[in-house]
């Protein structure tokens, strides 16, 4: 067992996959220097600059390049420095990458992982703080993964690289310095399966990415107040693991979904809609959502804090839903 930060364990996952499969190549802006956050630091020394490739600031072309390389036999792991700039890659991801297999009638496979980094922290402001995962769950042909902790990131990144589909892998900047033990007997998670992060019986809190940590903190406080909250970590946003959700909801009959993204048209809306339809009879009350109010992320810390959803928002919502403890 060893302690790892999120950043270091991602590097370990990349290192292991590169050493076991020579088709795996890294590319992205500054990846040879380690990228903006140091995730890939040092890998160029081990694998050379033909497998760890710096790119120009050309999000559209490098995404197309990675897509074309995946169609031609490589397993590229592309880094898009901030998810805010993944919009520059969206034409490719939507119109080429995700549709290639379908449009070709199944002739091709496209083993590609696009790592990117999302979320708000520390005044990164409106163009470096967004949570844009929703765009990608609306794209047939993509897989979307959003790990909630270092160990989760390790396992999910390795699984994603081996998965053989185009995967968007979203890392939350607030998690980068989080530390966690990697168990010796660790086994890789299955893409598409959610995880019960904490068991409970009064209410289900569904979350993903950094919000899982927030939900766990809230659940701890709720426990002290006599409310037993189950926390689900979705892990994969596309596809959604409705089976695990159904299991939990059939037990708790109350659901709160928490996300950092703006609520309108967000991932939580899809989950709420599905639960509202498929599990209507299990519900003792409305499915509620916690998320960002409908505004860009402001710069000043007071404003950023005021806007971003956090533990208190979860607590308030749960209290409203189950009655004060």
């Amino acid at each position, binding site marked *: 067992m060893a302690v790892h930060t999120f950043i270091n364990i991602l590097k370990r996952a990349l290192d292991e996959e590169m050493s076991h499969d020579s088709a795996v*190549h890294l590319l992205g802006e500054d990846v040879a220097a380690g990228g903006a956050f140091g995730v890939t630091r040092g890998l160029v020394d081990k694998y050379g600059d*033909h*497998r760890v*490739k710096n*790119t*120009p600031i*050309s999000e*559209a*072309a*490098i*995404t*197309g*390049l*990675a*897509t*074309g*390389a*995946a*169609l*031609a*036999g*490589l397993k*590229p792991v592309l880094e898009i420095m901030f998810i805010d700039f993944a919009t520059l890659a969206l*034409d*490719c991801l939507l*119109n*080429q990458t995700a549709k*290639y*297999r*379908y*449009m*070709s*009638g*199944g*002739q*091709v*496979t496209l083993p590609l992982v696009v790592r990117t980094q999302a979320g708000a922290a520390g005044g990164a402001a409106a163009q470096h703080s967004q949570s844009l995962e929703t765009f990608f769950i609306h794209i*047939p*042909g993509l*897989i979307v993964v959003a790990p909630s902790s270092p160990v989760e990131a390790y396992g999910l990144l390795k699984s994603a690289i081996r998965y*053989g*589909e185009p995967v968007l892998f979203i890392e939350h900047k607030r998690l980068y310095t989080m530390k966690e033990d990697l168990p010796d007997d660790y086994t890789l998670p299955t893409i*598409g399966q959610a995880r019960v992060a904490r068991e409970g019986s009064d209410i289900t809190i569904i979350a993903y990415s950094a919000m899982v940590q927030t939900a766990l903190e809230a659940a701890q406080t709720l426990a002290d107040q006599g409310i037993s909250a189950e926390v689900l970590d979705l892990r994969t946003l*596309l*596809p*959604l*693991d*409705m089976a695990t959700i159904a299991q939990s909801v059939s037990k708790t009959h109350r659901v709160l979904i928490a996300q950092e993204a703006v609520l309108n048209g967000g991932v939580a809306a899809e989950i709420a809609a599905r639960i509202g339809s498929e599990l209507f009879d299990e519900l003792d009350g409305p499915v509620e959502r916690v998320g960002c109010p409908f505004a860009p992320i402001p710069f000043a810390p007071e404003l950023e804090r005021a806007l971003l959803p956090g533990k208190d928002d979860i607590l308030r919502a749960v209290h409203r839903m189950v009655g004060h403890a």
Partner: protein
Amino acid sequence: MTQQTLEHWQQMYRSLWRIRIFESQVQRLAAAGEVPGFPHLSTGQEAVAVGVCAHLNPSDVLYTSHRGHGHILAKGSDIEATMAEIIGRDTGLCRGRGGSMHLVDAANGVLGATGVVAGNLALAAGAAWAAQAQGKSDISVVFFGDGATGAGVFHETLNLAALWKLPILFVCENNGYAEFTSREEHSNVNHVSAFAAPYHIPTKTIDGNDLRVVHAEAGAAIAGIRAGQGPYLLECMTFRMAGHYVGDAQQYRSKEEMAAMLEKCPIERLKRHLLESGIDAAELDAIQNDATQEVLAASDRARAAPRPDPASVMDDVYTSPALHAITG
């Protein structure tokens, strides 16, 4: 002419006709309501397809635009399967999922057409990168129109290709139009080859309606690419004899312009040359007839093929069939 060169030119003459007849047939079928969507014909531009693809192996990768029938046939894809795809049959290259703008024939190195202008230039660079990374001698070729050079990703891709010295041939078919708007209204840049200079990418602007010129210049360019010299940009000046898509009445073009174009028909030009070289007119007619028969027979087989089964509509969204159930 030696027997060998003679046969070589005859074969290319045949290839020109196959494309021309194929697309006339697409036009006919479209008029009869048998072609879904809005196919774009390369009529008048066939010499580019034939001259470039003559130098490609099946393992070389080809990407093309919305106007790609000719390139794909010239690379050797099956006529029947190509037509079947364009008319939406289950026996089509893409089982009827793709259609004219999304033809893919992976087994033949055709990695595909795209309906997004300039949308696959970077993918072609990716194929070149993969070949380079895997130590293969294959190259990647991508065909695109002059309008595509207005798209930023074209320039991003040139930069990457030059920087990484990728084995890729960029072939621009400059037909002077993007849809209904002439080149002058799109750009101050008359010649697309000008875009190569900043990156030190070798380039040439050539007469794309003269098959002999295209063949020679593409051959030289490809030889250089295979020798490790990195990317090349070949600009082929040509004319779109048909409308932008089947059904376009081309009211934005003058009669003079249309007439001048006919003069430059690449098939007529090769024919004149072959006749001057002493080949018998009857022989050329026989080639033309033969190509016509071949294409029409393939087209008929394609039209007789079954339509896709609606129940299969969710196939192949993902590699793993299990995923459809989860997300469907």
